[in-house]
């Protein structure tokens, strides 16, 4: 099923790139020899346990730690009052009003969500720390609770952050094209009352944590942790702790999954740092599952209110208006960046040119949101996909054909969207056809009839999404013009050591994406050596000199930023190796080639220097050369080509690459119970040049499993008092082996013309499976009342409600036709 295109003249496929090389990481991991943060131990370390708020919203009347401190084996505590003295509030990305939020590492004066850390207790054992935490007496005075972002902006709503004067964190109107004209031109206007994208996250199997040491001599902290964006953590922590960034050394080796959820652990890391200094011992903090669910990095919940869609008689989509209301939770840890990130894919995969979107973000008494796989884009992509399917059903268009008609076409590439983003390459119709063929769409009516004979409703779903990768951080200025961020960067160093070892150091923090392997593949092809002889350093260390401001692993960018840096550094090293060989052989550089692990004279293979010789000369045997031999230690910073976006028009290229994923599924619904089963699934990916197709496919399959979970089972549900009702894997059901449908994958390559390797960022998957399953459910329900799917999360009870009362959702849709 896999077809490879190579029309663009990018990197020539070598012996390693493009191959499914088994991963270098696996050897240690299958033997249980990975080093995750919780595996790091220090003598006499103290175990930290957080006292967490049992209330969603309350003032802290008093805190008494004396009983805990009296317990033998308890080393000490830290309270919000101490934090407020020792640190400044974290820097806020938001402009006012959100910019007024005072966010500290522990609750100060008030708690704003259930599970918020209030006091930290450190003791000799993990168990004792937890027991001592129970002896910390905190008096609370409960306040009214706000769990609905829509209600947060109403007069009289309880206010979380008084200094903000309300619960609004960010609001802005985004308008491109001539929206009024589009609606005037439309033959049909479809109005959709309300769409809701649910709150969940990717629940990486390893929760947060760290081992933190403080050296009183140097004033330096070392954090062995699993933060996945150390550059961001450092710029949040340094100013708050009033220290320079060089005092904050962040080290990771293996990380047990991240998916964006491990970007915003900086508050907890600050607590660990303060306690390591205060108690003069290493601090070990492990977050447990219930704590993670209650407090760490939920995905952005979003409503789309009063949507209007302008449609021509032939199904051409002209534009839309909608009001997005985003729920940031209790603090703005990475927000309100979600307020702009969505606009990378404002138009989805479609050609509509006229868009009006009011984006409002509110704070509520729920866990703070943070990036989650597909961050802020999947909400927008889900919205566009829902709109397509709702328009199709309401106006009786075929769901496939209306997509085909409105897709940005391959001949339109590179395509500039109404807001100035550039879709670099791709063939959406081809990807859709491939997905439909994999799923067997041509036989769908036969299958539908067969399912009906078993009493089941069967539906075909399509979810088409973009995976926008490599951020232009200049987009942050569109929500806060005062911010001084733009562009992007990543670093790699490649060196040749004394005995000829090729050593690669990355700036990224992989959590399973196989960076060691793909980096080695790129280097091996450039140096013409075996993948096995390329050593890629494991993990991340901010003390290595391969670290730039945006270093990290997030936002689908390694294949572009990380590998372009690797390519840059490897190209430099190859040049140096050739140069050194030419110096040794006293011949022109052009006469030298790298091949089979040697630098040799092209037409005299006997004259060959092994890597060992090339490494030894500059490092250990460098006297007597007329010119300085090259250092064989090459550092390259890759900076993608970006301009600062136009703040007035909210216009500009926000990401460098756009990978395509089209998903198709077949769902079966039991009309008696609403139980929904995905019985067949296909996902097609086009992410440009694939360095390692097996790793790409692995990412696609993983993203699919996340999407299936989010569509059917996974949801952070709060009651009206702000209690999280799904705080563990009992009630937050993630897909297990038996829950996975048969899964077919397909791929082709539309190389990016904008990246050095023709690669595109991928991995997040844009929530394609969520859109796809919503689409499939709506299709299945057509035969049973024709309910409209208005929520991204459709557990059995919601499907049953749609079956029982199809008119309820249908009534929220109106059509005005000329």
């Amino acid at each position, binding site marked *: 099923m896999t077809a490879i295109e190579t029309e663009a003249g990018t990197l020539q496929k070598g012996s390693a790139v493009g191959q499914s090389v088994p991963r270098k990481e696996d050897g240690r991991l299958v033997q249980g020899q990975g080093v995750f943060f919780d595996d790091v131990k220090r003598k006499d370390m103290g175990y930290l346990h957080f006292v967490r708020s*049992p*209330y969603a919203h309350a003032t802290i009347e008093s805190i008494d730690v004396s009983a805990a401190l009296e317990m033998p084996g308890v080393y000490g505590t830290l309270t919000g009052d101490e934090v407020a003295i020792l640190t400044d509030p974290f820097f806020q990305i938001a402009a006012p009003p959100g910019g007024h939020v005072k966010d500290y590492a522990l609750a100060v004066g008030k708690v704003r969500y*259930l599970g918020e850390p209030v006091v930290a207790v450190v003791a000799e054992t993990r168990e004792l720390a937890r027991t001592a935490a*129970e002896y910390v007496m905190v008096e609370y005075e*409960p306040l009214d609770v706000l769990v609905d972002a829509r209600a947060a902006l109403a007069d009289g709503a309880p206010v979380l952050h008084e200094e903000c004067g309300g619960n609004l964190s960010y609001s802005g109107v985004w308008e491109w094209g001539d929206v009024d004209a589009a609606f005037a031109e439309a033959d049909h206007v479809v109005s959709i009352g309300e769409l809701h994208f649910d709150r969940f996250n990717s629940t990486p199997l390893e929760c947060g944590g760290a081992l933190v040491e403080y050296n009183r001599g140097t004033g330096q902290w070392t954090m062995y942790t699993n933060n996945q964006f150390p550059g961001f953590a450092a710029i949040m922590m340094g100013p708050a702790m009033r220290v320079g960034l060089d005092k904050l050394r962040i080290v990771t080796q293996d990380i047990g999954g991240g998916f964006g959820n491990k970007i915003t652990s900086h508050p907890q890391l600050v607590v660990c740092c303060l306690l390591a200094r205060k108690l003069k011992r290493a601090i070990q903090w492990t977050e447990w599952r*219930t704590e993670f669910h209650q407090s760490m990095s939920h995905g952005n919940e979003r409503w789309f209110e009063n949507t209007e869609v302008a449609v021509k008689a032939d199904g051409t989509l002209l534009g839309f208006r909608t009001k997005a209301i985003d729920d940031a939770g209790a603090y703005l840890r990475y927000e309100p960046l979600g307020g702009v990130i969505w606009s990378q894919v404002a138009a989805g995969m479609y050609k509509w040119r006229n868009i009006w979107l009011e984006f409002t973000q509110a704070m509520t008494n729920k866990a703070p949101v943070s990036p989650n796989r597909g961050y802020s884009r999947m909400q927008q992509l889900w919205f566009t996909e829902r709109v397509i399917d709702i328009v199709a059903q309401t106006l009786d268009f075929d769901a496939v054909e209306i997509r085909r008609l409105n897709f940005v076409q391959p001949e339109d590439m590179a395509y500039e969207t109404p807001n100035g983003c550039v879709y670099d390459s791709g063939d959406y119709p081809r990807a859709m056809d491939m997905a439909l063929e994999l799923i067997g769409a041509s036989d769908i009516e036969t299958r539908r009839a067969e399912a009906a004979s078993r009493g089941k409703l069967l539906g075909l779903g399509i979810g088409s999404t973009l995976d926008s990768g490599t951020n232009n951080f200049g987009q942050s200025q569109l929500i806060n013009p005062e911010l001084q961020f733009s562009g992007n960067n990543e670093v790699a160093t490649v060196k040749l050591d004394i005995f000829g070892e090729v050593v690669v150091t990355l700036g990224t923090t992989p959590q399973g994406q196989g960076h060691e392997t793909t980096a080695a593949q790129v280097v091996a092809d450039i140096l013409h050596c075996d993948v096995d002889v390329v050593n890629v350093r494991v993990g991340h260390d901010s003390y290595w000199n391969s670290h730039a401001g945006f270093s990290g692993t997030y936002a689908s960018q390694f294949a572009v930023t990380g590998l372009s840096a690797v390519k840059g550094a490897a190209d430099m090293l190859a040049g140096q190796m050739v140069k050194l060989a030419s110096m040794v052989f006293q011949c022109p550089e052009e006469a030298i080639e790298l091949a089979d692990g040697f630098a040799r004279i092209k037409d005299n293979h006997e004259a060959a220097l092994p890597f060992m010789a090339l490494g030894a000369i500059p490092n250990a045997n460098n006297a007597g050369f007329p010119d300085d031999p090259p250092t064989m230690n090459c550092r390259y910073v890759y900076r993608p080509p970006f301009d600062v976006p136009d703040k007035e028009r909210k216009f500009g290229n926000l990401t460098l690459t756009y990978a395509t994923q089209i998903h198709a599924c077949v769902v079966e619904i039991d009309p008696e119970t609403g139980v929904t089963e995905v019985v067949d699934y296909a996902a097609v990916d086009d992410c440009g040049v694939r360095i390692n197709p097996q790793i790409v496919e692995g990412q696609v399959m993983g993203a699919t499993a996340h999407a299936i979970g989010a569509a059917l089972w996974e949801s952070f549900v709060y009651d009206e008092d702000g*209690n999280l009702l799904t*705080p563990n894997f009992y*009630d937050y059901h993630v897909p297990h082996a038996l829950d996975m449908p048969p899964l077919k994958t397909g791929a082709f390559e539309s190389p990016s013309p904008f990246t050095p390797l023709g690669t595109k960022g991928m991995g997040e998957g844009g929530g394609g499976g969520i859109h796809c399953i919503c689409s499939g459910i709506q299709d299945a329900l057509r035969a049973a009342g024709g309910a409209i799917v208005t929520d991204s999360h459709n557990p059995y009870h919601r499907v049953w409600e749609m079956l029982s009362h199809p008119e309820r959702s249908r009534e929220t849709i109106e059509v005005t036709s000329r």
Partner: protein
Amino acid sequence: MNVNGTKELEASREVVWSVINDPAQMAGLMPGVEGFEIKDERHWQAKVKVPLGLGGLKMTIDFEKLEERPPEFASMNAKGKGVGALMNMTTSFALSGEGDHTSMAWAADVKIAGPVGSMGQRVLQPIINQQVENVLTALEVKVAEARAAAEAT
């Protein structure tokens, strides 16, 4: 969580009122009471061990009388604190009926926070229903005793 219902009792409103308005009597209704202390007319405190099968849940519960209109209406607030659980309950009773028959309409809004609240979400309602049933059964007995005592004097 809201729970409510109506209990029919074979006694006059005055007798029923005398039971539910007496903290000491009320203490006898609650499951697993280990200690009881009257602070003043409107406030009292109980130490209970809610029997939960897998191990009792120890709680200190502070009661506060909110409103009373003898012999037809009473409401009170109960705040419980235990390791692993916080409880906040507002409950009310409305009595109606004639002669030796009383209808007691009761309602309670129960909020439970802490690990027990989050862990036991799927079993909390059955547990509360069960505890309520125990209380009402005990109430029936107390009312019968009170009626017998009243008739004896």
